């Protein structure tokens, strides 16, 4: 019996020590996360000898193909290839994530995300950006035949936007249509709703909707755009030490004309040919 009493005391003691230890652990986790480990200068991939690139499919023109493992080409794909080449890495891995997770900084374990992400101050608070590599405005994608000649025309339409995009903010804060815009978590559902007639128009970056219009074989067209002066940048995990290495390569690609060549090849439509509306 004495032994059992001793057991109870021992158990209580062990519990107390165990929980105290948990408390210490919490403290430690806190300090390691707030001060991320710093790598040496240059480029440190998350997986050895592999460039891990994140994007959000579908992205016609930027990443052609529906399967991240079987991309056939595209503007951002070419940039990713150039990065892999100039960083001297043997492999490239493409991961597909949801766009709103990406811009909310909720994606981990990647080197760079190339996903037509507009650089904004709000986003800069949760992720790091590379230098810009593309300029875009907001395009109006409609079913072929819909006329959008004036801003009033535009306001009368049933709009669709993608959650977490600058287009969603633009419709809600600047255009302010008569009906509240419907919100889609991914582009394919939005484009399908436009095709089904649930929407009259979809607001998205001009380059993206131009590519979509081209893929639709004349079923959809881009009839107008709104000037917003947006620039696309690659996303790096917050506090990444790889920014300098990647920025240097992007600057090179810009100055040697590679970026213009990629745009010519993959983004056939000329954004400047689309009529501009000003609300």
């Amino acid at each position, binding site marked *: 019996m004495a032994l059992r009493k001793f057991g109870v005391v021992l158990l209580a003691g062990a519990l107390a020590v165990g929980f105290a230890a948990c408390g210490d652990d919490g403290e430690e986790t806190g300090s390691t996360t707030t001060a991320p480990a710093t790598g040496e200068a240059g480029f440190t991939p998350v997986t050895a000898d592999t460039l891990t690139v994140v994007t959000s499919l579908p992205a016609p023109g930027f990443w052609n193909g529906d399967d991240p493992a079987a991309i056939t080409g595209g503007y951002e794909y070419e940039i990713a290839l150039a990065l892999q080449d100039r960083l001297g890495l043997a492999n490239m891995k493409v991961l597909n994530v949801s766009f709103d997770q990406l811009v909310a900084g909720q994606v981990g374990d990647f080197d760079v995300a190339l996903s037509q992400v507009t650089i904004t101050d709000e986003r800069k608070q949760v992720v790091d950006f590379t230098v810009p590599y593309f300029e875009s405005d907001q395009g109006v994608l409609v079913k072929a035949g819909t006329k959008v000649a004036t801003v009033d025309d535009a306001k009368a339409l049933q709009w669709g936007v993608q959650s977490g995009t600058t287009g969603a903010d633009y419709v809600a804060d600047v255009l302010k249509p008569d009906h509240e815009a419907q919100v889609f*978590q991914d582009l394919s559902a939005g484009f399908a709703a436009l095709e089904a007639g649930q929407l009259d128009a979809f607001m998205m970056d001009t380059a993206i909707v131009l590519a979509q219009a081209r893929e639709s074989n004349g079923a959809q067209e881009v009839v107008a755009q709104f000037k917003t002066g947006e620039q696309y940048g690659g996303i790096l995990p917050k506090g990444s030490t790889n920014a300098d290495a990647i920025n240097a390569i992007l600057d090179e690609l810009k100055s040697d004309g590679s970026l213009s060549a990629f745009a010519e090849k993959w983004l056939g439509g000329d954004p400047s040919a689309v009529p501009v509306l000003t609300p």
Partner: protein
Amino acid sequence: MALAGGIAEPAVPAIQRLHPIKTRLGLSIAALVAGLVVSALTAIALYRFDDSLGVVGGARTAWAVGLVAIGTTVTVVLAVCGVLAVARSVRAARLIPDDRVAARASGAAAKDWAWYVAGLSVTALVIAFLAFFLSANNGAVRNQYLDWDAIDAYRPSLWKGFWLNIKVFVVAEILVLVWGLVLALARIFPGKAGRPVRFLAVAYIDLFRGFPAIITIYLIVLGFQAGDVPPFNQLQGDTKLFWLCTTSLVLVYGAYVAEVYRAGLESIHWSQTAAARSLGLSYGQTMRHVVTPQAVRRIIPPLLNDFIGLQKDTALLSVVGLLEVLNRARLTSNRLFNLSPNLAAGVAFVVITIPLARFTDWLVARQARARAGG
């Protein structure tokens, strides 16, 4: 008192050696110590949580007062229970020579108090764990889940969005009740002639139960619009989308509810049908007046269970762009880079689900009583 033969009574009576009185002193002291350690841990956890809050002004004072109140309550209750346990043990030890019955009772009371400490300590540790969890990384965790500013910014959208969920849910629920019964009756349609009807019902139920709801929603809502399917092509804009979304959920949940109905219909003993038919009621009349009314009474609990599922699945309608509560939560969430609006949307569902679940429990209990003849 001396026994016959002049032999002195032993100091510890035989009965005490066989059935010793347990004073529980060791357990009580362990409980007191453990209670104090748990109190200290809880206090540290709450302090850290308070530290991570990062609010100022009146809210800060309110939080501090609330947390200090929790910490003090935990400490006082645990300490009092622990002290009482030890006190009863000591009293039991003191009473052994004089009053064996009272000593036994006191020892038992000590054990009870010690176990109170154990139970309350577990509760306090859960509170402490939550406080530690939420305050981790200088409150980054708490900030992701419980950012009051984000929830406040989301509140107007929350009401607007959730009202739509409620509308879809209520309308769909009523239609599901009708549609499910039709399917169930078709599924148990009697006779050789009824075979094609039974086959169709089984095929429908298998298909719509097997299809992931999200795919059915996508196909019905977008497909019916693209195909201009009547009568939906007569509707416009929001009304059209509302009815398409509701219809898609009715099609999915009709299949589930049909099976619930069938279980109920088949649970009615065949003698009921036999009796009704021998009284001259037709098959239809038997179903209408005898079998279905008895079956429905039995299946109310599982039906409510499916309705809880239906209510939650209204959130799936965000895939087709319906501005329901989850879609609006994600919109705010994306703007503010914070998950709190999603948590608030989840809480809105729970607020409806919990009363429904308790109501179901109550119905089940009432039925059990009725069956037991109580």
